[in-house]
């Protein structure tokens, strides 16, 4: 069944901003984040008939977002490899954010410097509020892999921030709370 304009608009209004922000966080580029949001929304409208309405829509949309993000980044990697400078519009969200103090800035820098898989799980878990079972479904990896990715991401954060600043995560209590 084709999606109606009203339904499409409702989905767009509810999800496009979050899709954009996830893409921005993962690609660090406003241009790519716009492209990903556009492609995601088009795919969502086109594949709407495949969506299982008995399940929540958000994880389905994020699954599409992450697939498109990976494809676009792969294309970019290739273009950069052959020496074609990507379009400007890089977004340093650390510099652009008004933060209370240097510690907050340091934490944001540390999160931004994590590798792609770690950032993927951090954004879905902490920003989009998904539990690890949902994330395992979105990423198409076993739950155990998700747990270890999150644990590794937090360990990497711990390494990047000075020891004294990381007592809670160091104890692992935070990780268990979120499972």
């Amino acid at each position, binding site marked *: 069944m084709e999606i109606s*304009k009203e339904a*499409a*608009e409702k989905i*767009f*209004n509810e999800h496009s*901003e979050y899709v*954009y*922000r996830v893409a*921005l*966080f993962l690609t*660090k580029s406003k241009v790519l*984040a*716009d*492209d990903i*949001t*556009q492609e995601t*929304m*088009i795919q969502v*409208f086109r594949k709407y008939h495949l969506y299982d309405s008995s399940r929540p829509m958000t994880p389905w949309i994020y699954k599409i977002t992450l697939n498109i993000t990976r494809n*676009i980044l792969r*294309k*970019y990697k290739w*273009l*950069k490899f*052959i*020496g*074609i*400078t*990507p*379009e*400007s519009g*890089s*977004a*340093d*969200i*650390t*510099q*652009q*954010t008004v*933060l209370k*103090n240097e*510690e*907050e800035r340091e*934490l*944001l820098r540390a*999160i931004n*410097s994590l590798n792609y898989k770690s950032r993927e799980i*951090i*954004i879905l878990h*902490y*920003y989009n*509020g998904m539990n690890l079972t949902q994330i395992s479904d979105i990423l198409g990896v076993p739950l155990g892999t998700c747990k270890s990715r999150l644990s590794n991401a937090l360990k990497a*954060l711990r390494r990047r*921030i000075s020891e004294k*600043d*990381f007592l*809670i*995560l160091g104890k692992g209590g*935070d990780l268990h*709370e979120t499972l």
Partner: protein
Amino acid sequence: MKPSKKDIRDILEKSLNQHSPSILFNSLWSGGRKKSATKRLFSIPVTTLIFLFALVATGSSAYVISRIIDKTDYPFIDDPIVIGKWESVDFVKKPKDFIPGQRAWKRELYLNSLVFINEGKMLSAVKGVILGPTSLSWTKGMILSKNDKTASSYEIENIEGTDYMFYEWKSGDYSFRGMTPKYYVLKKVDSNDYSGFKLKRVIEDSVNYTFENDERMSGEWASVDFVENIEDFNPNRRYWPGDFYLTSMNFNEDGDMSMRMNGKEVSHTLITWTRGLVVNRLNKTASKCEIREIDGETFMFYQWKSGDYTYRGMKPFYYVLKKIN
């Protein structure tokens, strides 16, 4: 601060919630989708592909940034009609697409104005940056950029009693991707002589710092890249395609320092350093120097506060330097 789940969530919300996509539902629904950046990038000319293929076939593994280089050393020829200030009114694919009073370009224009001064000098103002000196120059029918290595045509046409200029916009899309340039349309505002134009300083940093030694900073450093944001730096891939103006910095243990800029050694008693900063009491700037370990190597990110920062309020870029001594 002891980062917890809440800290991470809060910081992500703070940094991301201020950003929104630029696409609109109605344009997407009606099929007016933007051509994606990747597709735009794939529209590079066949000659570039052949060139790249030839490099691979000949076994070259050098990292290549292909670019178009225009001839820019034209002699100056006067054009009295161009003298004065011009303000952007549109951005079009071709000059014939311009219709006065009906703007074709729906987004904000990047180039705000151009001023043509006698003997080929120019001033410019772009989005977020006030009118000021530019490295652009002009000769009859052409605007030249020695930095970007481009020669753009300009044509002046009188439409319904107003002078309009069609300025060929040769951005990185032209130089690096071989795309056909579009045109800025500028309207003549005045024919004044701007040769006495003086820029007012807009930013003055505090320079009241005393010296504090930092062994990690002291020593000699050489430039390896120049980036817009620290996060743009990747040790395996150069961000800045051009030459470096600043090539090295030398921090002595007493707070004195010297820099090599444009092939010349520069030092001054009023330019000193302290932990995390280069303090320039001549220009009244304090530039951050941040040392980071990346992939097991130490790099310094030095905030480049040129006249673009002090006089035009532009956000500073960063030189990335590696310790050599």
